[in-house]
């Protein structure tokens, strides 16, 4: 048993080396496939990141009436945090709000004069709310549209409507982008699988005469199949390692441009370094499974002697 195993491995390595051009051609196709699949993974990650970045730009600012105290707002804050899908809230006091307002309109003398004419701060305390997901905003908005809450809020109905419209469009866009990415990925993976499948079949077809000779000399099916199976695992391992070795410097090269797009909040090269082991492992398992199926399928018909 051990002797046969050693021989199968030896034959597989011999096959690989002695048919080096066929091996390189097969390996190249598998590497290109893995690079394409990795590209899809990165596109998916970037899509998710872009959506997350867009989500972070959206928040809900609830400005309360001037008679609503900070304590009351903190109480509302506690209630909504425990009952609604909220990621974070930020309290902005009326003083902070006024300071920001003045700073924003510092070049507008008419506004400055009007503010100075007022004896009291016309702005109320505010709460800036960020939801867990985009689709969570409608439930938060609905909460503040209740009569009990409406009485405490200063002129915001129009803002809600605007938010609702933006959020609906954003939701729709996100879903569409995800659906399109999924369909394109699916099509691409099927094409890649077919290419690898047929490459392996052609590689084995070139050995069909050899397989029949082995059978006529008295080799069992397992002994004939063994080197090809091992060779396909070897192809998968080599292709995965080479793909990772190609992607590492390639991503370091393009990552600064991608980071710039995300205002340096996301670095693809760092993401890849952190996840390289898992990406490599999943790609290795996937391509090995595909290679094994293709090998078993292709070799089967030549073993019927």
């Amino acid at each position, binding site marked *: 048993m051990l*002797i046969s195993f050693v021989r199968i491995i030896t034959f597989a390595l*011999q*096959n690989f080396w002695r048919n080096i051009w066929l091996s390189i051609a097969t390996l190249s196709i598998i590497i290109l496939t893995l690079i394409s699949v990795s590209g899809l993974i990165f596109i998916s990650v970037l899509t998710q990141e872009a959506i997350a970045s867009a989500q972070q730009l959206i928040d809900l600012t609830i400005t309360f009436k001037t008679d609503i105290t900070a304590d009351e707002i903190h109480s509302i804050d506690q209630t909504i945090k425990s009952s609604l899908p909220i990621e974070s809230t930020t309290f902005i006091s009326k003083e902070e709000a006024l300071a920001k307002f003045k700073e924003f309109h510092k070049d507008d003398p008419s506004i400055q004069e009007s503010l100075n004419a007022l004896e009291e701060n016309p702005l109320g305390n505010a709460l800036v709310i960020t939801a867990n997901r985009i689709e969570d905003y409608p439930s938060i908005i609905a909460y503040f549209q209740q009569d009990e809450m409406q009485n405490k809020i200063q002129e915001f109905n129009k803002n809600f409507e605007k938010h609702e419209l933006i959020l609906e469009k954003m939701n729709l866009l996100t879903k569409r982008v995800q659906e399109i990415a999924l369909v394109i990925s699916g099509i691409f993976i099927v094409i890649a699988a077919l290419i690898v499948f047929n490459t392996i079949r052609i590689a084995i077809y070139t050995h069909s005469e050899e397989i029949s000779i*082995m059978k*006529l*000399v*008295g*080799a*069992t099916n397992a002994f004939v199949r063994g080197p090809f199976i091992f060779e396909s695992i070897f192809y998968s391992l080599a292709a995965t390692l080479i793909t990772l070795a190609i992607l590492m410097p390639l991503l370091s090269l393009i990552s600064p441009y991608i980071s710039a797009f995300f205002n340096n909040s996301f670095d693809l090269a760092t993401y890849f370094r952190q996840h390289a082991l898992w990406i490599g492992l999943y790609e290795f398992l996937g391509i090995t499974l595909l290679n094994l199926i293709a090998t078993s399928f292709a070799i089967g018909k030549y073993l019927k002697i």
Partner: protein
Amino acid sequence: MIIFKNVSKIYHPNISALKEATLHIEPGEFVSIVGQSGVGKTTIVKLITAEERPTHGTITIGGWDITHIKNRAKPILRRQIGVIFQDFKLLPSKTVDENIAFALQVSGSPFTKIKTIVPQLIKVVGLEKKEDRFPKQLSGGEKQRVAIARALAHRPKVLVADEPTGNLDAINTNEIVDLLLKINSFGTTVVLVTHNREVVNNLHKRVITLEAGEIVSDQKKGKYML
């Protein structure tokens, strides 16, 4: 050693490669099976090596009824029969040494046994100093010698040669036939399938003649009659 009882092989309803063939080959015999192309000579080889199953009749080799042989038993049968072919059927990516060793490796022979037997076989077929060459670096006669050495690796009781001289010139043909006679002299049953008149006539051994899938003559010391 080899017994065919009323063996027929029908590929398609209208194509009978072999019709009711009955023959009995004794251990240690040298038998030539002759006939023109397409009369069923290679079908007999394929039936002996279990590449094909008979449509009717029974086949027994060394007392083993292989008529309904199971797929998993075929390798065991093939390790007991040496076969050589017109197109040599060598593994192109293996050297002379490795081609011969392969026949032993498939049966799980230990490394030490292979190291002892392979050089002996190379010497028997006269290919010393060429053991590291690949088939494409050998002449036709040399390739056939490798094929013979490989066929002998298991010390088979039967050696089946299917048109072994078909691709060889006269000198190489004589050398291969001499080699087959030498192997036969050691007690191995040799079945030579050929349509080479000169070879058969010079042998003065048993000749079975086929015509249209039927055995039309079986002579103890025969000649090529067609």
